[in-house]
């Protein structure tokens, strides 16, 4: 852009310089002719128009009254003597006395040739400047392309890099110090990330096994124990407490592990799913409990909700929202399912929320102190939504609690 301005300025300056030089040349010649004319007058003291000045038009007019002796140059357009066209002329006007009478003499010189010259020079200049500019542009592009090639190579490799896979980040060795340093730093970062990912993944797997196995043992032993026939009432009570506690612990452990796995992005398999379709299927799983609680389901599913998502996570997402909406519903309540393009809302009638709605999606926030729920359901929902850049919102309006999920629509240009 800057070079374009400079080229333009140079071009204009060139034009003016050439024009000035041509004018200078013509004016010098006109002055010489004026001297010729004056010397002719001095020797003949008379003038007739069929003179020997061929190229130039000389106009002699007697003037009366006041005049000044200024010698004036001026551009004028005149009819050409030979063809019908009108051409540019440079005109020199001066005053002289012929035969005792003052006359105004105008000598004109055609500038057609000169203009053609200017045009030719300008055209040649514009062409060459353009060529120069294009070649400079191409040259710089090629140069920078070559110079930045290692950088772009690295960039495309990083874009392809998947830390959940086992392959290490492989970057080509660059001769440029800055780029090779950048590559080294990136390699170190990628290795650290992969290592962290792997150790977290192993931890969740180990924790899962190491905690679930003793829990399974407690469960099994309790089940064996309750088979004995001579249990007193207090025994049954204690056993029931142990049984509930171990079940809760197991569910808690599973919930936390699931959260860790989602946070660690271990669900990498994605499919193109329709959440509305899945929701309808999911609803049939809850059929029994809906009939049992006599909950009326009101569906307003206007559009599908397409999303690229892990099927297991989609299932967990809908399951948690639905079971939440049923658990906090009262008998003879209502369940609202609403969908629009990239929007899904599940609402339920229920008692007024006592807790802060902002903190609803936090871990271990539960509305009722019911021992059956561990308070992770909505935290898991939130984490899944965060992973897939889904916006989640809770609204409460006239005894209806709703959880809405919105998918940001990516612009076509983005």
């Amino acid at each position, binding site marked *: 852009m800057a070079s374009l301005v400079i080229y333009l300025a140079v071009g204009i300056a060139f034009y003016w310089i050439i024009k000035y030089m041509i004018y200078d040349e013509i004016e010098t010649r006109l002055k010489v002719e004026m001297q010729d004319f004056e010397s002719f007058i001095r020797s003949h003291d008379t003038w007739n128009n069929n003179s020997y000045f061929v190229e130039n038009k000389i106009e002699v007019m007697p003037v009366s009254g006041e005049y000044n002796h200024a010698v004036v140059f001026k551009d004028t357009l005149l009819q050409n003597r030979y063809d019908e066209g009108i051409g540019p002329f440079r005109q020199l006007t001066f005053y002289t006395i012929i035969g005792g009478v003052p006359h105004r003499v105008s000598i004109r010189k055609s500038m057609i040739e000169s203009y053609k010259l200017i045009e030719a020079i300008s055209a040649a200049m514009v062409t060459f400047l353009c060529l120069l500019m294009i070649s400079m542009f191409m040259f710089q592009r090629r140069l920078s392309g070559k110079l930045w090639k290692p950088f772009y190579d690295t960039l495309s490799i990083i874009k392809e890099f998947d830390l959940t896979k086992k392959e290490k980040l492989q970057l080509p060795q660059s001769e440029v110090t800055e780029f090779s340093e950048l590559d080294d730093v990136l390699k170190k970062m990628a290795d650290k990330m992969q290592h962290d990912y792997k150790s977290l993944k192993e931890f969740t797997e180990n924790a899962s096994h190491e905690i679930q196995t003793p829990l399974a043992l407690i469960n*099994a032993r309790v089940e064996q124990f309750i088979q004995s026939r001579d249990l007193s009432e207090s025994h049954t009570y204690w056993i029931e407490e142990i049984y509930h506690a171990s079940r809760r612990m197991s569910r808690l452990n599973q919930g936390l592990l699931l959260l860790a796995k989602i946070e660690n992005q271990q669900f990498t398999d994605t499919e193109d799913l329709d959440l509305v379709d899945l929701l309808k299927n999911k609803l049939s799983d809850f059929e029994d409990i809906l009939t049992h609680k006599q909950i009326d389901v009101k569906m307003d599913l206007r559009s599908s909700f397409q999303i690229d998502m892990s099927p297991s996570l989609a299932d967990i997402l809908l399951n948690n929202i639905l079971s939440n909406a049923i658990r906090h519903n009262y008998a003879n309540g209502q369940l609202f399912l609403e969908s629009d393009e990239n929007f899904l809302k599940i609402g339920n009638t229920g008692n007024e929320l006592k807790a802060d709605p902002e903190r609803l999606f936090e871990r271990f926030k539960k509305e009722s102190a019911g021992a059956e729920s561990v308070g992770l359901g909505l935290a898991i929902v939130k984490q899944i939504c965060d992973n897939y850049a889904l916006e989640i919102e809770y609204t409460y309006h006239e005894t209806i609690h709703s959880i809405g999920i919105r998918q940001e629509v990516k612009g076509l240009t983005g």
Partner: protein
Amino acid sequence: MKILVVEDEKGLAESIVDYLTKEGFICEVANTFWQADEKVSLYQYDCTIVDLTLPDGDGFGIIQTLKKIASTTGIIIISARNTLEDKIKGLEIGSDDYMTKPFHLSELNARVKSLIRRRNFGGNNDMIWREIRVQLQARNVFVSEKETLLSRKEYDLLLYFLSNIDVVLTKESIAEHLWGDHMDSADSLDMVYSHIKNLRRKILEKGGKDYIQSIYGIGYKFTAA
């Protein structure tokens, strides 16, 4: 009926063996991969219960060996790993069922029995207990030879009871058996209660006896006593 239990946690293996022995199965235990591998090659079992995480190997390996030498054996995986990939892999290499730890012994028992029934009779036999007869293929129930119409859940519940006779079943294990573990709410226990009430009423209506005994605070027991 011989069952092999492959489980490295000794206490859990003992519990399973105890429970299944009471149900009339002959059980053997393998605590390590190599023990299991040896037993599988030497003897024939009707059903094998395999834990996936063993100290000296992967349970999947045992399943593959089993499939090669004794393809009629039923295989149930019990594992603490509850990822979908593990479940799919387990079913792909030929196991019949997958249970996530912790599980209910009564549920494991029911599944072992159902698996053996399917293996031996192709599910095409009747289950008879006193005056109750269940046509497994057609899912029909007869009490004193009178057809009794049960809902799907009531049928499942009856079958669960018939697989665990004289055993105390916790309300939670019944709820999980009927609706899976995604239904972790107090409501499901209410539903268990109402299903049991209906089942009991339907059996009584057709002239059956009341076999469902409720155990205060814990659950129910299907018993002739």
